[in-house]
């Protein structure tokens, strides 16, 4: 029965309906949450959206191309600071009413700069393999953060962050108009009004859908197949005429673009950036989204981001939202702060449990599962074990415990 439903959901006939349903949900969610006064949920969903974009970029590098990257947040940081460097002077030039348009210029600039940084990083480091690449990207992430923190070239304002006191980013373009016109109530309990959170939610949703379309098309392109090919076997792939080095550089650059896009949007969404948003922990969380979701799988990234970014923020937001009060559960301020402190503890435990339960990720990619040749000895062991299980149903596992 369950597998029937699953097959029905995965069939090609159901696909357009699923997409339509997803779009309706994406549009309806903020309106419902905002209308019923759960503003914090809109904000959480928007942040999840940013992490989805970021993780889709990392998914290209880790999931498709098989390059371990621990410094993903550096591109996010680059995007966020480009937003400030572009947005603040343009706002000064155009004035506050038109200044909101600077976002769209910054978006393009951030994507280009992040891609360029990705290119510069890729040139020397892509000759390294596996864990050596991981540690170098980790180092790169830390270098970027430390440089921002030390006010490099005098343009980052150090730990205090940007914008510096006295200047600020403009209101988002057209928000005032939306505030006045997109307002409605239903009955006594439902009152929808536009605000900055809802505005950025929709911008992020559009970017997220764009990212999903672009990344999935890249995955299915000649380039995407080249990534899968050398992830599985570099020697065979290069014998087939794939320029491994060039293809890896493409993966880094195309992955970095989404880091820049998410970063610029983050900068405008928060209207403030400081180096402490771009720590190594954030890089590991983005990696956790990709791995927990299922490497190389786009639906996996969506679910992974909701788990990793959504659960802790939801715990915090829910505890302080007043909904519990309305439900008749009264908590002291201390208890509320305790609950939100426990969110990271819960996240840590959740990561361990999820990996123990589903090491291949929540929604593993079909193409990764079909790999020609196992990537490691461990994978080979699993395949051998599966072959063995098929041939000897009953007492198969005991043999392996003998070691």
């Amino acid at each position, binding site marked *: 029965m369950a597998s029937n439903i699953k097959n029905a959901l995965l069939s090609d006939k159901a696909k357009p309906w699923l997409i339509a349903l997803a779009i309706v949900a994406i549009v309806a969610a903020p309106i419902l949450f905002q209308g019923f006064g759960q503003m914090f949920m809109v904000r959480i969903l928007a942040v999840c959206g940013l992490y989805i974009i970021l993780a889709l970029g990392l998914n290209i590098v880790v999931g498709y191309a098989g390059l371990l990257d621990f410094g993903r947040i550096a591109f996010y940081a680059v995007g966020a600071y480009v937003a400030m460097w572009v947005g603040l002077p343009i706002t000064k030039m155009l004035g506050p009413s038109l200044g909101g348009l600077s976002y769209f210029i910054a978006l393009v600039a951030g994507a280009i700069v992040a891609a360029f940084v990705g290119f510069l990083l890729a040139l020397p480091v892509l000759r390294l393999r*596996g*864990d050596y690449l991981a540690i170098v990207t980790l*180092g790169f992430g830390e270098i970027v953060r430390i440089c921002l923190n030390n006010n490099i070239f005098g343009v980052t304002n150090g730990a205090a962050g940007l914008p510096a006191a006295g200047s600020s980013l403009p209101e988002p373009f057209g928000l005032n108009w939306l505030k006045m016109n997109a307002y409605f109530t239903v009955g006594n309990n439902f009152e929808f009004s536009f605000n900055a959170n809802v505005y950025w939610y929709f911008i992020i949703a559009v970017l997220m859908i764009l990212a999903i379309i672009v990344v999935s098309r890249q995955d299915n392109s000649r380039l995407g197949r080249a990534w899968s090919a050398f992830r599985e076997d570099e020697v065979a792939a290069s014998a087939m005429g794939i320029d491994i080095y060039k293809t890896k550089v493409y993966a880094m650059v195309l992955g970095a673009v989404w880091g820049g896009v998410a970063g610029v949007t983050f900068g405008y969404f928060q209207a403030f950036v400081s180096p402490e948003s771009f720590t190594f922990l954030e890089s590991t969380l983005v990696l956790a989204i990709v791995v927990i979701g299922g490497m190389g799988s786009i639906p996996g990234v969506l679910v992974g981001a909701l788990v990793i970014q959504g659960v802790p923020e939801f715990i915090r937001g829910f505890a302080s939202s007043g909904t519990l009060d309305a439900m008749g559960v009264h908590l002291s301020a201390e208890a509320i702060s305790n609950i939100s402190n426990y969110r990271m*503890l819960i996240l840590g435990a959740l990561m361990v449990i999820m990996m123990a339960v589903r090491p291949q990720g929540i929604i593993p990619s079909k193409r990764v599962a079909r790999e020609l040749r196992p990537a*490691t000895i*461990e994978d080979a062991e699993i395949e051998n*074990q599966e072959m063995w299980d098929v041939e000897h149903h009953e007492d198969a596992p005991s043999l392996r415990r003998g070691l």
Partner: protein
Amino acid sequence: MRLSSRNRAAVTFVRDILFMDTIIQQLVNGVTLGGMYALIALGYTLVYGILLMINFAHSEMFMSGAYFGLFTMLFFTDEGMIGKVTSALPWMSWLTPAREFFLGSTFGLILLFVIVFGVAAVLTGLLGMLIERVAYRPLRNAPRLAPLISAIGVSIFLQNAVLLWVDSKAIPFPSIFPVKTFAYGINSLKIFIVVASFVLLIFLDTFVSKTKIGKAMRATSQDRDAAGLMGIDINSVIALTFFIGPALGAVAGIFHGMYYGAVIFNMGFFPGIKSFTAAVLGGIGNLRGAMLGGFVLGIIESLGAGFISTGYKDVIAFVILIVVLIFKPGGLLGESVVEKV
């Protein structure tokens, strides 16, 4: 040889120009720091050598070790804590004379430090084994990145456990060690840290290269399946690895606490990533490489902090790492091997 007055002037000049004193001071600091990095780096490299896995929870072993050491020390020497313990449990009243004994004589002090380091190392080692059993063993045949994410989860969990259940603020480390300062910023604590690190490093190196268990560890790291077929109990070897690494990390954690005078829940992060860097710098999976990498990194970092900028000292360490890896992709002492994520 007698120096002419001009030569002598030149020597003074060079010494002034090169800040000879600062160099020596920073070298001393660098070797001290390097000793700690080497001890932590061994934990990373041991686990990597056997499981091909980056144990991101190792920085939290370092942190837990510092806390275990701190509380063992407070248990025996802090009057407030002894008062509380003895009033709650009368049969613990031997703690008061024990405190006088520990703090009263040189022998007592040595014994105190042996107990503190021993207890912390054993407890942290057991914690490491527990983590391996709970978080890593079920994932031994999983895709390569799965245990990595599990390790990050353990790390986040332990940090927040200490933050929530122990203290969110820094706890001062009692300054019981008698610190005597000599020239060039050398003091007895630094000498103790460097000598103790060297002793432990030599001990571990001998253990792995000379004993039978060490041979089993080396065999397991070369080929786990073949080692198993030769009659080696792989699970115990891995468990032992997860005891030794955290135990050494705990010693480094106590050194860190004594050296900087405080412990805090997130103290493991920077020493952790830098020691991992040191392990990679030396060639990950290679024990002597980790030791060398630790000292090289400690010295570079201290010289960088002294001569270029304190703010950029970590940048210098990472840039050196990137440069070394580009020209010598297997690290200083490692071999270049073809591997995949």
